[in-house]
């Protein structure tokens, strides 16, 4: 249906995947690989959040907590109980997805953005538990000695192997979520954006669609958390605080709604900022120190500025450029899920 555009999109995705997976062949710098492994972990979380934000129109301030649940769950059972990695992974994904479901069920039956506040409350409870439940989490000292991921005889013990593991999962996650948004649930979400009332009249239950999106995105955060624990070998509560959730929101907002590529690109960009010195060797130490010191202020300004001046984020800007230079004769994209105007919020109707 979408013809040329669709082929170009697939070619770009395939090229990006190949480029990403080829990185360890080009460099053996362990630090650089670790930094890009973190980019991959954030890409997994942001892919789930993009489903929730860009397609289901909800925002979560609690994904750092689901990330933490995944990390602690798998870290604990593999280190203290001797479970194999895959069992820990299943537990991590299962626990965070169930947690997401339990949180979303009541909050999404209400009008408005109760879910956002509920996720914030959930995140604070989780932060307290991560510190206080010492027998499981190790308290402020954290949990150390977490084994490398291993499947059968295959052990992910080198930076390269871990990089491929994380990015392999990240690419699979992007493909899976793009499958969701271009199939029936995705069309239901698109319909909800048009008019929630209209969609309900067509037999779509808004709450169950949004709850499903939230469960998937919480599960993906748990999956990323599990990988994080096994890549790093150590987890501590400070990694899963509210700040982490807000950074994730910044990635989403900068990336734009109704897009997966945009948020993943923004995740890469914002994850790399604190490591700017190792990516761009020419950067002065003063610039790097400034970026790290003023990170919070800059993120706040960026979130506000994007919502004020470019509410579509990176994805919106790309769409606008394609619209301008695409020329005539392109197939119309009305009805296609990946099309649609710049912002979710634009279509949501006036709040005031």
């Amino acid at each position, binding site marked *: 249906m979408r013809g040329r555009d669709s082929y170009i999109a697939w070619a770009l995705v395939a090229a990006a995947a190949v480029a990403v997976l080829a990185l360890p062949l080009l460099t053996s710098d362990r630090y650089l690989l670790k930094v890009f492994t973190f980019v991959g972990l954030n890409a997994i979380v942001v892919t789930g959040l993009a489903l929730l*934000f860009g397609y289901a*129109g*909800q*925002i979560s*301030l609690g994904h750092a907590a689901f990330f933490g649940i995944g990390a602690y769950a798998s870290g604990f059972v593999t280190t203290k109980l001797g479970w194999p990695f895959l069992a820990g992974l299943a537990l991590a994904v299962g626990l965070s997805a169930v947690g997401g479901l339990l*949180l979303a069920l*009541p*909050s999404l*039956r*209400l*009008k*408005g*953005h*109760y879910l*956002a*506040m*509920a996720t*914030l*409350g*959930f995140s*604070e*409870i989780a932060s*307290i*538990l991560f510190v*206080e439940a010492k027998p499981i989490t190790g308290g402020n000292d954290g949990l150390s000695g977490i084994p490398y991921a291993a499947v059968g005889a295959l052990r992910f013990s080198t930076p390269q192997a871990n990089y491929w593991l994380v990015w392999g999962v990240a690419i699979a996650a992007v493909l899976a979520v793009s499958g969701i948004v271009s199939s029936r649930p995705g069309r239901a979400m698109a319909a909800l954006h048009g008019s929630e*009332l209209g969609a309900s009249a067509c037999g779509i239950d808004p709450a169950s669609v949004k709850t499903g999106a939230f469960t998937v995105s919480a599960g993906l955060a748990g999956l990323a958390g599990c990988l994080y624990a096994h890549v790093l070998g150590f987890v501590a509560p400070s990694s899963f605080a*509210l700040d982490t959730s*807000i950074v994730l*929101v910044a990635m989403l*907002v900068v990336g734009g709604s109704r897009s997966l590529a945009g948020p993943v690109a923004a995740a890469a960009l914002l994850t790399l900022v604190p490591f700017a010195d190792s990516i761009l060797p020419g950067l002065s130490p003063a610039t790097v120190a400034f970026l790290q010191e*003023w*990170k*919070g*202020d800059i*993120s*706040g*300004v*960026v*979130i*506000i500025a994007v*919502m*004020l001046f470019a*509410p579509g984020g990176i994805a919106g800007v790309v769409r606008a450029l394609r619209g301008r230079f695409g020329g005539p004769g392109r197939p119309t994209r009305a009805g296609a899920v990946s099309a649609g105007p710049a*912002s*979710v*919020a*634009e*279509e*949501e*109707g*006036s*709040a*005031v």
Partner: protein
Amino acid sequence: MHAAELLQFVIAGLKNGSIYALVALGFTIVYAATGIINFAQGEFYMLGGMVSVFVLGALKVPLAVAIAGGVALTVVVGALVERLALRPRRDAGQLTLIIITIGVSLLLRSVARHAFGANELSLPAFSPGPSVMFMGAAIERQALWVWAITAVSVVGLWLVYEKTSFGRAMKACSISHEAARLMGIDTARVVALAFALAAGLGAIAGAAVTPLTSTAFDVGARIGLKGFAAAILGGLGDFRAAVAGGLALGLVESLSVAYISSTYKDAIALVVLLAVLFLRPQGLFGRMAKEKV
């Protein structure tokens, strides 16, 4: 448990509860005027305390003047947030506006850290002296101030709502912006004043509590959550319910410390928040809002 001991916990609960009530009022006022949850409400509380401490130290003015300065500056910040960050996108829908308030909250917190430092700061008590004894329980003088300030704020707010044309305009806006505009109400002005009022109430709470607990740049998120829990517990959108919710939350928290444990004190409010969302989302006193078509 001894009666005097129990009374001590009740007093502590009512003291914290009045603070939650003031923060909850801020949520309620903004929600009633705009329909959005203001994620920066806790930062107004933080600014009230921090700016008062800063003015006191930098200008060496009397305490009352410093606090007036702290509250006034926070009110200006509240109005500026509305004017510069929210009004330009007021037709954009809830999600956009909520994300903007999240950005504002992060920005205010980070700027406060740079402006006032990362250390805990405190104010002297409003009227120094020993605690007042009441039926065997001790009441700090500052707690009396907190109650007095809460009572005056609530009565003042009630007068504004019931007796002034601005109050009627606020009520009209909470029912329908469109209709209010058609009746000649300047809705943009009402929303700006609602933000200023919410910022002022948050700042007063923050300044009043600073002599008791001290303050820091990062206190906003947690108090914001508790204030929101109080607003939800009472029923979002009604200011008497916000006050009742605040006091009830303070009592529940304090009694749970008395009877259960203090380890999870901060988690209690959040559990209450989630429980209310699960079981009675309209709050204890609210009625379920009908969806407008």
